Each structure stands twice: as C-alpha cells, then as structure tokens.
C-alpha cells in the first residue's frame, strides 16, 4: 500500500476546502504531475475566482491571482510575455463557462500555448450553491429550488464538446474524479497536457468532473454515487481532441 505524503507544491497549511471536496484531489494531481515533470520552479498557477481561489492559501509555487472569468486572458499575457514558463489556469464552472466564456473560447481559438484545467462541479460553490452553466437538468440549487428547468435556464454546457470543435486546440479531454480509475486517467491527462505545452503544441484543456458535498447537500460518498448516476451520463468522459494521436497515426 502506498504511503501518504504531502505533495511538493502544496504548502503545509489547511486548504480551506470542505471535507470530501474533490478540488483538493484535483490540486494534488496537478502538483504531483508538476513534480514528476521537474517543473516546480517553472510552473505558474493562474488562479481564478470561486473555490479555486483557495489555491492561494496552499499552493506553494508561483501564483498569479486574477479576476473572475479572466484567467485565460491573464494567462495569455503571462505566457506571451514569458513563453518558457509552464502556465496553467485552474477554473471552476461559473468562472469558465459563464462570466469567462469569451475568454476561454478565444484563448482556445488562438491556440494559446498554455493549459486550462476546468473543475466542473455543477454549482457556484463559494457563493453558496447557485445554479451554474453546468448544473444538470432537475438539479436543485439555491437559485433553482425546484430543480433546473431548461425552459427558462437552458441546458448544461458541454465545454469539451464546444472547445474541441475549434481548429486550434491541441488536446481536449474530460475525466471524472469519482473513481480510482478516473483519477489515474486524469493524472495521465494532466501530464500529457503539460508535456504538450512544454513541447509547444498549443492549447490544452482538461475538464475534471468534481463534486460539492456542501452545496449538493450530500455526504462525500453520496456525491461520488450521484456523479455515477447523474453527472457522468450527461458529461461523457473521454478524449475529444488530441493532435498527437494523429501524429502517432501518421
């Protein structure tokens, strides 16, 4: 059995994430991959707004904290100004798929050579559980107390599917963090995306299906089951685009 260790990029302080929240796991995966790639000093974490901003408290590498939804724009400036750095933005669903929709789509469309990691937990966690653009049909939130009704709120947005339609992005993939297998795949996906960035391949996008025990009003274990029965059937995990797969075929 593997021995637990604190991941190198994570500071020795409480994270602030709620018990059972998969943000913690996602952050750890990113940290482990950065260590494996020997990029501890080179990685720049562009921190967005929402629960993801708690990264400020316990990410021990370089941080650039930015306005709500604007991480892909700020990352564009940072990476263009300093192309040798490994730049990644970590964004939640309200940040990325609502207020920051123009920024994510445009950065992807320009093929900016950085990585966006998108934590999709179908809710605005930090502000208390309002409906997100990714909230599932029928899912109850503080602004959809009878469940999300598509007649007035539309449908949950599938960001991987949207982004993979663009010509420029190099790697687009979705992973679910509610099973050991999903976690291993996510870790490999993040590593692939970072390596592709280091190789100058262009824009890479990783969507991680996560949870929110507090606002879903479920126990951590129940959230994992909820993801199996509700989230995963709608947000299908998989690789949506990978330019290196084509290169390997050729």
């Amino acid at each position, binding site marked *: 059995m593997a021995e637990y260790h604190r991941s190198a990029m994570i500071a020795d302080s409480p994270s602030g994430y709620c018990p059972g929240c998969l943000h913690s796991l996602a952050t750890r995966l990113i940290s482990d991959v950065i260590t494996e790639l020997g990029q501890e000093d080179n990685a720049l974490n*562009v921190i967005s707004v929402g629960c993801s901003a708690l990264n400020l408290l316990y990410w021990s590498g370089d941080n650039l*904290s930015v306005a709500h939804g604007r991480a892909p*724009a700020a990352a564009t400036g940072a990476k*263009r*100004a*300093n192309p040798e750095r490994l730049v990644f933005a970590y964004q939640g669903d309200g940040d990325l798929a609502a207020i920051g929709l123009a*920024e994510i789509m445009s950065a992807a469309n320009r093929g900016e050579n950085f990585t966006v990691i998108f934590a999709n937990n179908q809710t605005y966690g930090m502000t208390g559980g309002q409906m997100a653009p990714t909230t599932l049909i029928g899912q109850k939130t503080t602004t959809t107390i009878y469940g999300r009704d598509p007649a007035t709120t539309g449908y949950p947005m599938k960001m991987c599917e949207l982004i993979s339609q663009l010509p420029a992005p190099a790697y687009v993939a979705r992973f679910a963090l509610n099973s050991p297998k999903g976690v291993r795949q996510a870790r490999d996906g993040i590593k692939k995306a970072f390596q592709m960035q280091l190789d100058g391949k262009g824009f890479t996008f990783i969507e991680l299906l996560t949870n929110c025990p507090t606002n879903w009003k479920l126990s951590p274990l129940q959230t994992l089951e909820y993801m199996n029965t509700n989230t995963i059937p709608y947000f299908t995990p998989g690789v949506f685009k990978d330019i290196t797969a084509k290169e390997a075929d050729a």
Partner: protein
Amino acid sequence: MGEKRFMKGNEAIAEAAVRGGCRFFAGYPITPQNEIPEYLSWRLPEVGGAYVQGESEIASVNMVYGASAMGTRAMTSSSGPGISLKAEGISYLAAAMLPALIVNISRGGPGLGSIQPAQSDYLQATKALGHGGFHAMVFAPNSAQEAVDLVYDAWEYAERDRNPVLVLMDGCLGNIMEEVELPPMKALSDEDLPEWSLTRRNGRDYQGTITPIYTEPILESINAMAGETYKAWEEEDVKVEEFLLDDAEYVVVAYGIASRVSKEAILRLREEGYKVGMIRPITLFPFPKQSIRNLDYSRVKGIIDVEMTIPAQMRDDIALQVLERCPIHEYGRSGGCLLDDDGVYEAILEIVTGGNDNG
C-alpha cells in the same frame, strides 16, 4: 538630437511606448484610437515584443495584467466606452500593484456617444477609473510631442508606484499629424526587471505571488499606502503649464486640445489689451491645486473653465481651490462638436467684457 517624424498622435504614442520599453500590447478596435493597435501589431514583433488582439476590452486589460505580472512593460488603449469595460481590470491592476499604461483617446459620450473627439472622460479618469477608490496618475498631453514625452516615461512612474498610469487625450490629438522628435530606444535588460515580477529570469528563488486578494488588515494597510502615494504625487509629480498669469485678471483653466485652442484665443485677446492668462494641468491627477489656489484673487476677476465637453467636468476641482474668491465660468463644445479658435475667443471676450457673470 532625436529623430524627427511627421506622425499621427496615435502612432506617436505607439512608437514612444516601444521606445519607452513597452513589449506587450493587447487591445480591441474602437475609434478614434485604432492607429495605436494597428501600429503596435507590426511594431512590437520587430523588437521581440508581443501583440494580441483581445476578444474584448475586458480580456485585453486582463492580458496586460498577466504580462505585467511577468515584469514586462505592458499597455492597452481604448476610447471611453472601452475604458468603461476595462474598469474592472484597471481596478485589479491597482489592487495587485501592477504597473501598466492605459491610453484613452476620448470621444463624445455618454454611452456609445460619438466617434468624434471630445473631452468627456475627465471625471472617469480622475475620480473612478474602476471600483474600490483607487487612483491612477493621469497625464493629459496637448500635442503629439508632449504625448511622446509623457508616454516614453510612463513606466518609470508606473513601476516606481506599482500602479497603472493613464494617458487621457481626445480624438483630435490622437488623429492630428504633427512633427515629433522621437527619443532613443531605452535599453532595458533582465536586470531591470522589477524584483516582484513572476519571471525566473531575475534569479528569484522564493515563491512569487501576485494577487488582488488580501486579508482585511493587509488590505487596509495597502489602502493606506495608496493614500500616501497619492499625497506624494501632489507634492512631487504635479505637471502644469502657467501661461501669462503675472498680470492676469481672467484665468482660463484648460487641458489637452482645449488648452491649445484657448491659448490661441488668449494671444489674440492680449493683442487687444485684455489681461487673460491660462493654467494648463498636464497631470489631471494629481491636479495642480496650488497653481489655482495661489492666484492673487485681489486681481483675478474670474476663472474660465474651457473644456470640449458639456457640462464642464473639471469645475468642481477648480472650485475647491478658488473657494468662492471669484466667479467660475465655463465654456465648451460637446458630443463630438469641436472647439474652435473664434468660438473660444468670443466666449472669453464676452466674459471679460462683463457679458456673463457666473457662467
């Protein structure tokens, strides 16, 4: 002796920025500032810099935020409607203590307004460039040459104060072609990178964090520090032109294009024996309070606030220094209708000959 060129104000700003060390620009098209991004789109790559056409003014200012965090001299430009969109990002720049140059080539307002020139953004520039009660130093050149000189040194102020600098210039001066003398390219090396920047190039071996988020006591102390900075500006960085004030009975206060038209009118009025002078703020923030406060009000019979906007926006700043010691009159054109020599001359003449007592 610098290099002389006949250039558009907007292009002169762009070239001066490059020579002043700018290596990153992001912006979004809007008239009347389009020559700035157009020029920098080819010019920056020539000097190893980067140009990005942003998907919006919001994205553009945030790109500047990212580039500036890396220690790169970065700028964006726009006009009133776009500056409103950048307000969020400018406020974040101030919060994260990041230097940047913001250029506003202003036009008629409010709303979409007019694409024609106007000085309609004084209040936005000097009072609330964004939320949260911060200020940026505001330069208001009145010629292409002065724009070159101020832009060239803008980052010296921005980096010293770790705060954005705004250049406010109306569409007239943005589009005017005049002869300018260009300064030499500043030689900046990695050693010049600010110590706080998030680049590895300056050999930093500790964690770097740039953030607009603070705990309450730290935010309070940062607010207090900003207050001290603004006070220091007032003592050390005010730029003002005082013109024919020694015997002036009427004093025009005007900046930018309005100051040039006013000066022409004043020269004509002087020939006719009218004792009119002018105070021209070059920095709108810090405002040249002393110049107005210290006028000899036993002689000065009136202040005339001339602006290419209606109603005049500088009036309250002037009134706080005049303290009711003489009347303040105002004259302006607005909405994209331009001031002209005869119009300003006639307006001042009417005031000095007693046709108008209190504006």
